[in-house]
């Protein structure tokens, strides 16, 4: 019944992205000395962890055939709420973090309600919320970057040693989150329902899934994950930054799609998203190490995004 492991690996939708990632690593490894070092890999993971975590929430939403343009802005707002409450508001750090997470989850909840109750397209809801969250961030922060954070808020930026390499707790948390969501989506009833919903909401409804409640739940959970991304961002940069996250919506979507998830919903895997995020991070890091000027990096990134997905597509066509 079960196919053999190698066969399953090839037929899994993550195979293409994984191959692209490995090829990129190989190329940069051959062309620069510093690429294949533990420190550099640790760095890449640190650099993708914020967008990667945002992309977890984005994956959930895209699996339901939605899209989230507001995630970067929600994260930025969550980060400001956490830091401002802790620093200016005098709240205990733990409470401030909780408040930030709650605000992000709240944004997700509102998105979910608008999508389900008024049947608004997710694109429009989150486009509107992008502006709302952006504006609230700037109004609430008064355009001020918030510094001098209590240690709890930057704890995830601390490192521990693995062999020779320093790894941040944040990187670890990100990886754990990916594994958690891979489990939830792949091995629980909830995950099945998310796929069914994205596949065909009417079928899902007729088979007795409470599709509205599920959708609202997905958006809220995604919002909560953006809250975690906010905490990761804060601990990575050590400040509350009202300018953060402005291109992270497209970046997170890129990671999701590079990871092989269909924008039409119902097909994809969250571990693919991790790979997608790493592809972007590896390219940025590798090109920088090779000393490619940034405008050419943009050019190459553009071409490679297309190439990576094209290779994936063509290889699938062949095995069909």
């Amino acid at each position, binding site marked *: *019944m*079960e*196919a053999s492991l190698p066969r399953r690996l090839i037929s899994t939708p993550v195979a293409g992205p994984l191959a692209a990632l490995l090829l990129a690593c190989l190329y940069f490894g051959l062309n620069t000395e510093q690429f294949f070092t533990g420190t550099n890999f640790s760095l890449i993971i640190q650099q993708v962890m914020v967008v990667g975590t945002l992309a977890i929430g984005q994956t959930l939403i895209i699996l339901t055939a939605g899209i989230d343009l507001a995630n970067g802005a929600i994260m930025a707002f969550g980060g400001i709420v956490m830091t401002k409450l802790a620093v200016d508001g005098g709240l205990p750090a733990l409470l401030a973090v909780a408040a930030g997470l709650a605000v992000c989850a709240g944004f997700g909840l509102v998105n979910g309600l608008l999508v389900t109750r008024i049947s608004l397209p997710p694109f429009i809801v989150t486009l509107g919320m992008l502006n709302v969250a952006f504006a609230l961030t700037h109004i609430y922060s008064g355009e001020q970057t918030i510094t001098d954070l209590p240690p709890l808020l930057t704890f995830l930026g601390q490192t521990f040693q693995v062999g020779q390499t320093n790894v941040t707790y944040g990187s670890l948390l990100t990886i754990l989150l990916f594994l958690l969501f891979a*489990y939830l989506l792949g*091995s*629980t*009833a*909830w995950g*099945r*329902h998310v*796929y*069914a919903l994205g*596949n*065909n909401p*009417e*079928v*899902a*409804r*007729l*088979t*007795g*899934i*409470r599709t509205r409640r599920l959708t609202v739940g997905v958006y809220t959970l995604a919002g909560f994950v953006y809250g975690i991304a906010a905490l990761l961002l804060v601990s990575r940069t050590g400040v509350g930054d009202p300018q953060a996250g402005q291109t992270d919506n497209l970046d997170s979507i890129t990671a999701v799609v590079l990871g092989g998830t269909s924008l039409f919903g*119902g*097909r994809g895997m969250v571990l693919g998203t991790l790979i997608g995020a790493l592809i972007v991070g590896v390219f940025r890091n590798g090109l920088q190490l090779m000393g490619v000027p940034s405008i050419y990096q943009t050019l190459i990134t553009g071409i490679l995004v297309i190439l990576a997905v094209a290779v994936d597509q063509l290889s699938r066509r062949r095995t069909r």
Partner: protein
Amino acid sequence: MTEPVLQARGLVKKYGHVTALDGADFDLMPGEVLAVIGDNGAGKTSLIKALTGALQPDSGEILLDGRPVRLRDPLDARRHGIETVYQDLAVAASLDIATNMFLGRELRKPGILGRVFRMLDKKRMREESAKHMAELKIGLRSLTQPVESLSGGQRQGVAVARAVAWATNVVVMDEPTAALGVKESGQVLDLIRQVRDRGTPVVLISHNMPHVFEIADRVHIQRLGRRVAEIVPGDHSMAEVVAIMTGAIQVSDGKSVVKDKDAAEAIGLS
């Protein structure tokens, strides 16, 4: 007289200017196979959607075992043991057969894995699905292939197997054999008999008169959004039933009354 298991009174459903249901009644007796027949657009699908929570009627009431119920969504109907094979939207295309079979009622692993970590018992679901599919004798290469790669008939088979597997109270099937081959249709009819024999009543919508006459205990004839007759197949010929369906003759108190003489002649009655 025994009490109907599932009943509807005066169901109305309008889509804009189109009246799909126009005061439809419905009665399903315990342990019977009730066929629902009618022209295209007569409101058969709308009727059973209302009966299974998939559609909210504008007015009218639904009674289960004589008690009025409100079915807000298909899950409510399911909880009352009503299982349905819908006409179009039966299965989630990109998911595999086993997943489709267990959608909405997944099995969890025994012990802590299932209770705390809510882990699915994929193996058991696959095995049980295989069992159910085997009962229908639909040949399948693998239960892990996505439903979209099946032929139309195979897909329909999955939906039927699912409904039969889960129903405890009523099974409703909206043209379950429409896409099926002769052999597979025969198996579905067998299955319907089995379900009835275990005491569960079945509602079968079908355009296939031979099937209807072969299997139905009673026939509900739907026309223009209403039930125009309830008959027992043995009492009427196939031609007569078709005539009622198309409005050529009318029934009052169980007796046929010729209404449209020309039409009745045209189909060979008189």
